[in-house]
């Protein structure tokens, strides 16, 4: 692959520009070119969701997304999930309160899936965060911590 192309992406609000190979995957662009290693490469087949990032607010598996497909996009990764002052976001706080991280390898993808859902406006009809989270695998837990966190988020939404 000798040809290359230039892409411009806003990553966590910061403009990035890079010369990349056309076959470069988004997860490798993030981890290797930008050094954003919070996004995890696990199954490499779009089956587990550990590499989930938000492309223009929509969750995608970055292992199956070409980096060039993100040209011109606004990308959010786990490194941008916390509040600007560095404290945990509402989603992260709920996961923390509910004792979620075990090995932690699925956690960044889970956080981004939940953040992605929280940013849906309007909410996709008939869809729930619980159904969205079926896209993400966790092998350590029985998903109960995630369920408790979903309940906590729903309570917080109901009682702002």
């Amino acid at each position, binding site marked *: *692959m000798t040809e290359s192309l230039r892409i411009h992406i806003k990553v966590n609000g910061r403009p990035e520009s890079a010369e990349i190979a056309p*076959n470069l995957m988004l997860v490798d662009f993030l*981890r290797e070119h930008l050094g*954003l*290693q*919070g*996004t*995890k*490469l*696990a*199954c*490499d*087949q*779009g*089956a*587990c969701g*550990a590499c989930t990032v938000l492309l223009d607010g929509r969750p995608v598996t970055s292992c199956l997304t070409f980096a060039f497909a993100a040209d011109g996009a606004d990308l959010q*990764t*786990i*490194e941008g*999930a*916390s509040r600007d002052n560095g404290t*945990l976001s509402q989603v*992260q706080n709920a*996961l*923390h309160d509910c*004792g*979620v*991280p*075990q*090995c*932690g*390898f*699925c*956690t*960044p993808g889970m*956080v981004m899936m939940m953040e992605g859902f929280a940013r849906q406006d309007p909410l996709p009809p008939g869809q729930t965060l*619980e*159904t969205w*989270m*079926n896209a*993400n*695998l*966790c*092998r*350590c*837990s*029985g*998903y*109960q*911590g*995630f*369920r408790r966190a979903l309940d906590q988020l729903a309570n917080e939404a109901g009682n702002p």
Partner: protein
Amino acid sequence: MTALPNTLAHVGRSLADVNGHDKLTGAARYASDFSLAGMLHAKILRSPHPHARIVSIDASKALAVPGVVGVVSGEDLSGLDHTYGMFIRDQPVIAVDKVRFAGEPMAAVAAETEELAYRAIAAIHVEYDVLPAISCIADALAGNAPPLFDGRLHPSSLQPPPLCSSWVQEPAPNILFDFSYSFGDIEALFAGCAHISEDRFTLARQSHAALEPHVAIAFASDHEHVEVWSNNQDPFLLREDIARIFGLSAENVRFHAGLVGGGFGSKSYCKIEPIAVLLARKTGRPVRLALTMAESMMTVCDHPAEIRLRTGVSASGETVVRDAVVELDGGAYADASPSVAMRMGTRFNGPYRWKGVRTRVRVIRTTTIPAGSFRGFGMGHVTWACESQMDMIAGRIGLHPAAFRAQNFLDPGSSGAPGERVLDCDLTEGFNAVRNRIADKTTSANTNRGTGFAVACKGGGSSHRADARIDIHPTGDVTLAAGVTEIGQNTRTILTQVAAEVLGMDTARIRVVNIDTHSTPFDSGTHASNGATVAGLAVRDAATKAAAEVLLFAAGRLQCRVEDLSFRQMLIVHGSASYSLSDLIDPTMKDNPASFSGAASVQTPGGSLFWMPIWTVAEVEVDDETGIVRLTRLINAADVGRAINPQRCISQIEGAAAQGLGQALFEDISYRNGQPLTATPLTYRMPRLADIPADFETIILEQGRGPGPFGAKGVGESGNLTIPAAIANAIADAVGARVMDLPMTPDKILRAIRAKAGASPSGR
């Protein structure tokens, strides 16, 4: 939770994971995030054939790919002690002369980028002389099966067999290990039984499928030294393996381990590390060998098995005698199979009283993925067969399955077999905890709804050595070093709580360091649910010693007796005065310590150090037209002795239960024509959130008899053991059909329902 009274400050509290913030923000670093300057990237060429002689390997075209720095194959192993395996060393680092499973490493390439390494392995030409595949136990035992090995015994480090047992290593070309165990006069006992049940059960090939694939980064600064960063669960065992294979001094082999993205047994013992070291020594550059998850699934799995049980009970329903004959499909190589066979072979008594138990466990070689250690170490196999059969026997003799179990439970303080550790839990209390929470079928309006019980009791903590060191710094900060790896069981959090309790200090000021075999205290491996218990004891003792060092030093400075001092909240209290550590550091003196250190080592004996009981009730709905099972309710209770961290105990049991649910209903790497059909994350079905019943409860019992710090015991391997049998029993309760082969997929359930409809009812 049935809790012990708790006057402790840190133990018994659900402290959040000490690395939780980093894991939630993406700041946590794993071995797969590690890199070194000038690092090469490696990929492995894997055999497409399950069984073949290697005629030739031509890597010249691969070496000609620009950016390719080194290629290794079986030829590069000459002069090395090139095989490994936990007890029987039969697995070559890379295939030599022959391949024995589809996916076996044939060669490996190190190149400037991973992409180039992929291109290079595609350019390696291998000529194979293809041999017949042996895909299952029956094929391996058939008279015309081709031998996988030439019949010579492999080097081994097998220990003498445990009490009442014997073993034979490699008795035949396709039999790796033959283990026998017996107590009681078996045939005489059967002759006296009123009812004898004979049943056959099978298990499929379950994959660990940890989310972080195996990774190893190796660097050989010269021919005598090797440094490796890996996500193996056993850095200290790996150090010995690498030293032996490459003829190095163990002191010159250095392993690093940090956070590990899940293990479940898949990262135990030697795996891919020697290939990374081989390439690093050949190229003189750091080499990163990172498998894909699909490759990890081809590296190790759990054992498919066939279990035949003959069980005799008295007229009144007393469990009397059991004879178990097991064939384990060990795959192509030994890995941990002999150890699994031995553990399993001594545990067919389960949680009940018997006058005699006889077991024979044979590990059969097939041309499939090597099977190794998996959460539960064979106890899941035992429980699937025995707890299914308990319900079948109860049905045949007209007892309620719960009552049949309850009348035969071992009593606390009694021993289930000669030489076995006495029971350190109350089986009846635990069983009642789940039994009282669920109604019998008769109260349910839905005729296709049923409930099922299962109980198991796994031993843990045996033959383990864990060392720990605590350094109290004059700033009041504490460093905790222990050789147990953090693989998602939140051991670092547990050990932090133990140290904080002993030292009477804030957990936030304790830092658990990554493992470096040059400086971290020894640990014989993260296995057998031993972290909180055995490493926990070492940390407790190390913290006690470090605090004593503080007081000894303070007594010297304050010119008083040690007995007059106490140490709480990082303050030395002397009468009404109190001093911080820095108060006592006198800059004019030359004997100020850099830190106050305490080191401790705990060695546990062979046999179980503690019992991990698990009591389960499952409730299902069965669609008798489609065979689809819906798990509607799942309740587990476990005795943890004392919960150092209740939330972490619950997480372990819940997570294990989800793995058991997958094993029960869909997980299976199946084979056809010698090729694995489902050894990829996309094709291997694992539990997702929607598979978990909405009504899913975990009850933590603190029965207070654990040998660990503050009465704790391990909990990591119990939650999965009972789930398949509890679900099978619930299906039988719901529709009267019995499935005896895992996973219980809809086709098997339909077949069982139809078989029942076609046959006269004979028990449940």
